[in-house]
């Protein structure tokens, strides 16, 4: 551990805290329909697209109607992506002549992108054509991120509404999310990545003979334009299988630092946007503070854990940092900070092999995800996931003091709490059920790579990551077998892993989302009561501590037994398996 490693963490938090109110305020202006600077250039496009999708007089939608639009749009997105993948062999821009990915892998991949997960059983550079990467992965990284953003704004409106049941119009929000937020940031960001060394070309791979006379093939493609949006939208699907570890994807320590900022920027900004929408910016800052504290805690533990040799290194007589699976330009400080940032958010674009992290170091990204992706979380879903936890915390506090719980002056009643409870336990249930199934069935064991407790950790990680829509992996875990043959000849998917994971991603995305929309619909239009002497304020340090405790207790109670079987065992023993 070095001073510069800690300093980097401090600089990151300082910059993020500076950006949050600026970007948060901008996003608020975009969605409240105020004229923003970019409207000069993009206003006409926005109006045409909006008219095309929502008609000339876009009607406000209640939560059911809003959810219906989300569902219709996401279903067709899924179908479009599945077809693009399955028809890969007859599509253009396929210089490597790849055949279509098998049906089971395509199911998993389509579900991965539509659910904003970015889980990769496929290896981008060895499975997908440039056409699939561009019109498939890139497009749906944009769209799933925009859906999350739109839904979060709609839910925030529901919390703020005093007399109306309308949450906004999905199509209007979708178009604004893309045109004023994601696309401008992606254009600037991708040019930055290219300048740092990211690849951006449609040419075929290049074969060469190296200095020492070996053969090598440079894997090229439209990388930067895809990388940037997978960072910004919390998708995290790398162009290459090893994601940000690949120098063509994340070339320098500086590009990595800016990448981490891109990962955190929008989820962090949404706390500020939320505060503005509900008319009390301290509410937003309270959420931000809780998120930052959890992020810092995770970063400190992971950094400390990886700054020591792993048991395998110790037994071999090696000293120093645990560099197995890490890149020299990032070493341990950048690798662990990135890992924490991309697992605390729902991003998953890791720059190191988490499978080779130490027991303690590897349990941190798992714990990040097991909070339900509320430490910033994915674009949009991080915010509404956190709001569900807020209601839970308010409810628990209400029980303790014996008052009807209130949030933002609205009574939280049986209906809301039932919904919140279902929303909070659904994803952990999927994780534990799928892990148990996969570990107890022979066809589930086929995916495991490592022996001993690490094999269990890989399985637990796989379903935690997929059900929480993160996308990072203990990448020894496989769902696709691919011989290195021309055009992917002879590759096959592992049906159980592909279908179980794909279903976990879809349910993990849309079930909590619709529950949160229902809560917002239920709160929307509830009369507000003036705060009295007995009202528990939700924008104070005490509430932040309570919220932190609620999140931790729920995650710990649910997952500690399963963590004990995998990473904890390895953290406590020097035994080799």
């Amino acid at each position, binding site marked *: 551990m070095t001073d510069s490693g800690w*300093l980097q963490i401090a600089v990151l938090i300082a910059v993020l805290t500076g950006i949050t109110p600026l970007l948060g305020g901008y996003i608020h202006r975009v969605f409240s329909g105020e004229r923003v600077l970019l409207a000069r250039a993009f206003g006409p496009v926005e109006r045409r697209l909006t008219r095309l999708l929502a008609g000339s007089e876009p009607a406000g939608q209640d939560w059911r109607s809003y959810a219906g*639009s989300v569902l219709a*749009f996401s*279903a*067709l*997105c899924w179908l*479009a992506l599945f077809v693009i993948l399955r028809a890969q062999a007859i599509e253009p821009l396929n210089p490597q002549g790849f055949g279509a990915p098998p049906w089971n892998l395509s199911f998993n991949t389509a579900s991965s992108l539509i659910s904003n997960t970015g889980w990769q059983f496929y290896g981008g*550079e060895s499975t997908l054509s440039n056409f699939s990467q*561009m*019109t498939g992965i890139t497009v749906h990284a*944009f769209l799933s991120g925009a859906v999350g953003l739109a839904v979060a704004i709609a839910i925030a409106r529901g919390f703020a509404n005093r007399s109306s049941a309308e949450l906004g119009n999905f*199509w209007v929000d979708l178009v604004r999310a893309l045109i004023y937020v994601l696309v401008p940031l992606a*254009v600037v960001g991708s*040019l930055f990545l*290219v*300048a*740092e060394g*990211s*690849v*951006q*070309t449609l040419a075929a791979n*290049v074969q*060469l003979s*190296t*200095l020492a006379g*070996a053969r*090598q093939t*440079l*894997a090229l493609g*439209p990388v*930067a334009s895809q990388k940037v949006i997978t960072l910004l939208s919390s998708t995290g699907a790398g162009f290459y*299988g*090893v994601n940000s570890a690949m*120098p063509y994807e994340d070339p320098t*320590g500086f590009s*990595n630092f800016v990448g981490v900022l891109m990962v955190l920027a929008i989820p962090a900004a949404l706390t500020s946007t939320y505060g503005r929408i509900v008319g009390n910016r301290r509410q937003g800052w309270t959420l931000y503070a809780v998120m930052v504290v959890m992020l810092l805690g995770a970063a400190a533990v992971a950094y400390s854990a990886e700054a020591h040799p792993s*048991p*395998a*290194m110790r037994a071999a007589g*090696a000293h120093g940092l645990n*560099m*197995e*699976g890490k*890149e*020299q*330009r990032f*070493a341990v400080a950048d690798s662990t900070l990135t890992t924490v940032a991309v697992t605390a958010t729902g991003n998953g674009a890791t*720059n190191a*092999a988490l*499978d*080779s*992290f130490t027991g303690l170091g590897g349990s941190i990204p798992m714990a990040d995800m097991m909070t339900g992706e509320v430490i910033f979380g994915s674009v949009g879903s991080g915010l509404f996931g956190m709001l569900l936890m807020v209601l839970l915390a308010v409810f628990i506090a209400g029980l303790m003091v014996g008052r009807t719980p209130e949030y933002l002056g609205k009574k939280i009643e049986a209906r809301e709490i039932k919904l919140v409870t279902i929303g909070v336990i659904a994803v952990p249930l999927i994780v534990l059920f799928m892990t148990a199934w996969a570990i107890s069935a022979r066809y589930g064991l086929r995916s495991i790579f*490592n*022996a*001993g*407790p*690490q094999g269990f950790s890989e399985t637990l990680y796989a379903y935690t990551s997929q059900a929480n829509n993160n996308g990072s992996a203990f990448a020894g875990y496989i769902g696709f077998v691919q011989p*290195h043959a021309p055009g992917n000849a002879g590759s096959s998917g592992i049906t159980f892993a592909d279908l179980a994971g794909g279903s976990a991603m879809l349910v993990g995305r849309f079930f909590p989302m619709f529950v949160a929309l229902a809560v917002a619909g239920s709160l929307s239009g509830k009369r507000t009561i003036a705060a009295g002497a007995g009202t528990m304020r939700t924008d104070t340090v005490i509430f932040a501590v309570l919220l932190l405790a609620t999140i931790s207790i729920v995650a710990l109670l649910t997952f500690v037994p399963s963590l004990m079987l995998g990473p904890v065992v*390895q953290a406590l023993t020097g035994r*080799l398996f």
Partner: protein
Amino acid sequence: MLRQLRSAAIAVVVFTVLLGLAYPLAITGVAQLFWRHEANGSRVYRGGRLVGSLLMGQDFAGESRYFQSRPSASGYEPTLAAASNLGPNSAQLSHEIRTRLSAFVRGEGVYDRGLTAPSVPPDAVTASGSGVDPDISVADARIQAHRVAAVRHLALDTVLNLIASHTYGSPGGLFGPGSVNVLALNLALDAERAP
């Protein structure tokens, strides 16, 4: 619901064209115009012949006149880029590291007398995250310098100076430690030998 589906269908088609074709093609155009070197993979030529990419590590095994790259779990092949993915308590990983460590100490110890296992930097004996890590640590390079200088009949200081001039990093190591690009360093070495 039918109206929603109609809007959804239009949205999917329009956005696939705008974000899947127009956007990446526009970025490709600008990138090819202003950052030709980077956008095409930071290729390196010597005497007009393509010899590699500055961002893709190469295999120099068996070539004692060259600095060696970090171990690779995927044969330094960018189209197969992968880490070992072996767990922290993996017996196989431990065996691999032990083998690399003893080979490193044996091979470099001939030239760098007094080299012991505890002073071998971890990046020299562990496989990288991508399998094509183009860099090694400064500590690793400074140990290898003894061998390279002896084999090439160069003064040790000449080689150490080359390492220093090929070390890159951010101010104060804020965004990552100082690292040495192996291909660039080896090319510079070859240029050094010629008068």
